């Protein structure tokens, strides 16, 4: 009986030591990977439906969206407004977000790198704009995975808005 207690105590101490060294982090499961990937698909669906609020709901309350050639947007409301402005500036420009090209998961944090493209113009003259994203996705206390940081940029300079026409005198 005494040896059992000593063995249990030894296991307890070994567990604590491993914990201290970070050797027993929560496993990142295939279910976690699927849940993280579902955020990508939900983002694409919400954006293509023109639903900025649904896109913003995929970010956590501390999230920062970091679009190319624009200041960061911090918090869901700022992100919603930024997405709404983007949808207004580029209407009828569906996005396709590619699956992860690089993926790292650890504990309640996942890092995903992947491609995306936006199609602009009409069906007779579509223009494909390629880009890429790097996101940090966090699992919240409720078990849901949400975007914490979202950095994206296009692969080519965006065509700038034409200058305003000269004023007539």
């Amino acid at each position, binding site marked *: 009986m005494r040896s059992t207690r000593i063995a249990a*105590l030894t296991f307890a101490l070994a567990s604590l030591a491993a914990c201290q060294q970070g050797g027993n982090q929560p496993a990142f499961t295939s279910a976690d990977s699927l849940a993280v990937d579902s955020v990508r698909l939900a983002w694409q669906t919400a954006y293509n439906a023109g639903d900025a609020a649904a896109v913003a709901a995929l970010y956590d309350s501390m999230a920062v969206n970091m679009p190319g050639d624009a200041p960061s947007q911090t918090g869901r409301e700022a992100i919603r407004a930024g997405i709404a402005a983007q949808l207004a500036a580029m209407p009828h420009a569906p996005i396709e977000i590619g699956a992860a090209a690089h993926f790292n998961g650890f504990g309640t944090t996942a890092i995903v790198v992947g491609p995306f493209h936006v199609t602009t113009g009409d069906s007779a003259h579509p223009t494909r704009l390629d880009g890429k994203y*790097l996101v940090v996705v966090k699992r919240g206390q409720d078990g849901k995975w949400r975007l914490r940081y979202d950095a994206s940029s296009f692969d080519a300079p965006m065509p700038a808005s034409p200058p305003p026409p000269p004023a007539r005198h």
Partner: protein
Amino acid sequence: MRNRFLPLAIALLASAACQSAPKPLSPADETAIRGVSDAFLAAVNSGNVEGLMALHASTSAVLPPNMPTASGADAQRQLWTGMMSQMRVTLTSTPVTIAGQGDLAYVVGNYHVVSTMKDTTQAAPPPDDGKFLNVLQRQSDGSWKYVAESWSSNAEPPAPAPPPARRR
């Protein structure tokens, strides 16, 4: 006898605590990561391509704005060499957040860069302010290296110059 199951309970609690509480970065990790950021700035500001390469894991991805992703060493050497062959830069950065768990960390912050062209007959791009998101992973030797790096300007692209006015 009353404490018969105490060691077992401690063992189970220790194991459960480990499973449910991911370990955040230690102060030593944070110091090491700041060291990588400082080395990155030093390498950029001295035009040291190999110094930059040494800070990136072999499987890393660099996501520059307005350019395709550079994955792996060959593409990244080409990217850094291309950037540094044309201009000298003075880059400063301010990390706002350093966070992570276990072997994975990310740094979020802002940068300011001033560029001068090596060919002084060419116009340098204007000073730029932007933001960055860098991800690092602890390597098997304990060092931290970049596995993903992204940055972009806060400024809208400049509008094209208006066509020259016609003279009568």
